[in-house]
């Protein structure tokens, strides 16, 4: 039965067998997406179940616009998954500021650091930001990113190396231009 007919049958009869068929078709794809986004099996299970419960409510309340059930479902999954990650992020930051007092600001240097970060590969840039801006420990980075400790160390080490390469290249270019 096409998915639009399943949706319509569920909305008109309220019979769970139609929703169960939608579950059979889309639980795997929704879970796979959430696992990639969250990097945590228990969290992906929580959010997949919540997604289908919301979808069930939405269908009953007539919130679904016909045409693309899968797209609508994955939009709910994406929103709930992002919320989960953002509230997990708040927990990392909940312990107050772990920093020394901020130094006198040098806006130019700050902008240059930002620009060098943007030239790095994703895993290097993210590892450095999590370590030096968020002040996460290696263990926290591993949990947050779903990386092994070895991967965290490699990404941080290579990230630092690549950063310094671009950073010193940048300053020698600046010096060269000034001569």
């Amino acid at each position, binding site marked *: 039965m096409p998915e639009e007919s399943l949706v319509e049958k569920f909305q008109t009869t309220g*019979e*769970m*067998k139609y*929703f*169960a068929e939608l*579950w059979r078709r889309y*639980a*795997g794809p929704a*879970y*796979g*997406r959430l696992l*990639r*986004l969250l*990097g945590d099996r*228990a969290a992906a*299970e*929580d959010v*997949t*179940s919540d997604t*289908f*419960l919301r979808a*069930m409510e939405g269908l009953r309340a007539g919130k679904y616009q016909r045409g693309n059930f899968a797209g609508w479902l*994955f939009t709910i999954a*994406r*929103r709930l998954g*992002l919320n989960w*990650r*953002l509230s997990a*992020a708040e*927990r990392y930051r909940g312990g107050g500021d772990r*920093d*020394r007092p*901020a130094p006198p600001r*040098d806006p130019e*240097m*700050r902008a240059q*650091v*930002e620009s060098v*970060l*943007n030239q790095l590969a*994703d895993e290097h840039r*993210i590892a*450095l*930001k*999590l370590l*030096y*801006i*968020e*002040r*996460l420990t290696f*263990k*926290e980075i591993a*949990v*947050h*990113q779903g990386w092994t400790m070895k991967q965290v160390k490699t990404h941080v*080490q290579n990230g*630092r190396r690549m*950063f*310094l390469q671009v*950073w010193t290249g940048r300053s020698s270019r600046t010096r060269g231009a000034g001569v």
Partner: protein
Amino acid sequence: MSPEEREFEEELGAAFRALRERRGPCPSAEALSAYQAGSLEPGEADRVRAHVAVCGLCDSLLVRLKDFDAPGPPPSPVSWPAAERRMRARVFAGANPWWRRLGGLFWRPAPAYALAGIVLLAAVAVRRIADTPPAALRQHPARSIELQVSRSGEPGAPPEDFVVLSFWIPPRPGLRYSASLDGAPPSEIARDDGGGNFHVPYPAARAGKGRHRLLVAGTDRQTGKVEQQVQFEFEGAP
């Protein structure tokens, strides 16, 4: 600290801390999604861009979001069946919970008194079990564990009979939970909501007639240390 690390810290530590100062709170899930889809107003998009430039958490989220809709490999054939069963039980148990079906009883005096009598007897029976908790375990009032039997013939039910154990334990953030039924190896369980509600499915044969014991353990996600343990004893479903 290696010389390389020290050099990095000395030269750049201050600049990174200054970036942290500028970061501000993360945007909402809706704003991040819209930013990634390119559908934010230009001013709002600039604000999100400036935040992401200095936020490791949002940066990592946006990188992962890029692949959200890409076709991925099918879920692992080893862990998927159990995960699917746990999730399905939650979704379909929530759809038509037994206590909602019982709702009508409370408006009629005779069944309500009968029900109250049964609950009282059950509480007395349970109290006797609760009197002898194993050392080092906090015995949770066992009346808060409920059994819901789902027969495979019911609409929306899985193709085998199973029992959902529903219970509540005081919620603790940052813990990962597992449950062990009658001393079997523990398996990971997921919370039903942001609070402490759990609905854990087991094949009906594993929670049949007789006494059963469910041990729930909460492990710190960061340290792996067991921080919370609760044990339930209950009468299985005939």
